[in-house]
């Protein structure tokens, strides 16, 4: 009986895929040259509108970037989760000893992640865990809320400035809908995932690198900066000392590149995911996007994990005592 069900599901999937291929009107108009055919095809498929900087919502005189709203929603989810998860613990009630519901989830995440951090940082993890776990859960939630319907698809329809690319609008009951035809309107979505706006990953990267320096100074004192400007090696090291000095300067440079690679790794992955979903949804509207949604769930998790683990690893390297020089 189970086998029949499986076969039915597979048949249904294949049927829907074929159906969606028929629905997306790919019509090449005879042999009028390859370029013409491509142009025709591109014209009839709904092309996704992709914009790198965040769109601005105009509310009275204020301009609010829609990625800010996405960030605030992620914050709200985290705050509500934290408050609900620690309710019994803060009240000192005996129910807290046997965690249930949200508290269970919060404890599970916290214990799993801090176990990983203890592997990397040793006993120092105790002090740095709050920052690192915050990185992890914030990036995770901010990445995952992008996958909810309504993100980047519901918003205000505005007129485009003269000369810019716009689309035509059709009324659909009380609301309006953009079509694929040329026109004078564009969509300004209400919500956009935080990490598809370069400012948010850049801010996270700055916090990460700055706090790495702070922790290093706390562990080793101001002598930590000898690593970058190595006067001592220059004085006493001879020819190899000059080498050590240059290596120190290069290490200082790598702190700057760390910011760039942190910011663009997160931004690039999540923005590319957004573009991928938009393109796939426009090409094959049924079923195919589901696979890529699953992929995006995975990518969102991996990026959050990598951001936290890299910060932890850099902190571990920076706070490790280099022995008495």
């Amino acid at each position, binding site marked *: 009986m189970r086998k029949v069900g499986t076969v039915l599901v597979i048949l249904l999937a294949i049927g829907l895929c074929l159906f969606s291929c028929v629905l997306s009107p790919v019509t090449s108009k005879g042999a009028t040259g390859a*370029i013409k055919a491509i142009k025709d095809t591109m014209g009839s498929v709904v092309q996704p509108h992709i914009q*790198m900087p965040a769109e601005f919502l105009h509310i009275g005189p204020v301009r609010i970037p829609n990625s800010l709203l996405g960030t605030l929603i992620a914050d709200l989810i985290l705050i509500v989760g934290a408050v609900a998860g620690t309710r019994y613990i803060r009240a000192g009630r005996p129910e807290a000893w046997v965690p249930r519901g949200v508290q269970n989830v919060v404890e599970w995440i916290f214990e799993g992640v801090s176990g*990983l951090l203890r*592997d*990397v940082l040793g006993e120092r993890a105790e002090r740095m865990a709050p920052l690192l776990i915050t990185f992890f859960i914030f990036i995770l939630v901010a990445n995952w809320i992008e996958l909810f319907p309504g993100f980047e698809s519901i918003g205000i329809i505005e007129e485009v400035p003269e000369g810019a690319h716009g689309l035509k609008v059709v009324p659909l009951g009380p609301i309006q809908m953009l079509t694929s035809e040329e026109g004078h309107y564009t969509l300004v979505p209400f919500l956009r995932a935080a990490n598809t706006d370069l400012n948010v990953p850049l801010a996270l990267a700055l916090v990460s690198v700055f706090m790495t320096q702070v922790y290093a100074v706390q562990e080793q004192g101001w002598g930590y900066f000898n690593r970058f400007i190595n006067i001592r090696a220059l004085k006493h090291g001879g020819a190899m000392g000059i080498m050590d000095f240059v290596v120190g300067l290069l290490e200082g440079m790598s702190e700057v*590149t760390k910011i*760039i*690679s942190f910011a*663009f*790794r997160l931004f*690039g992955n999540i923005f590319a995911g957004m573009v991928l979903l938009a393109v796939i949804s426009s090409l094959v509207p049924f079923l195919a996007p589901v696979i890529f949604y699953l992929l995006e769930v995975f990518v969102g998790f991996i990026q959050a994990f*990598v951001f936290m*683990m*890299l910060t*932890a*690893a850099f902190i571990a390297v920076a706070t490790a005592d280099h022995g008495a020089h």
Partner: protein
Amino acid sequence: MENVLGSLDMTFWKLLAAGLAIGLGAIGPGIGVGLAGLGGTQAIGRNPDASGTILTNMILAIAFAEAIAIYALVIALILLFVV
């Protein structure tokens, strides 16, 4: 063919350059990330007890390899949106 090439404007070259930048720039990091993953999984297979340390170092190595692809991505984005 000459007619087609002659009618192409800056946008075409920009798009081509951006595509080539990220496409070619992703080859090396792809191989690098694959090698790091290979080494990591083999090491975990041989010594499962050390998987925590190996995982951390593997992710670190992958991140350094991936950084090259990120520079290519930056160039591609600059070509697309800034130039």
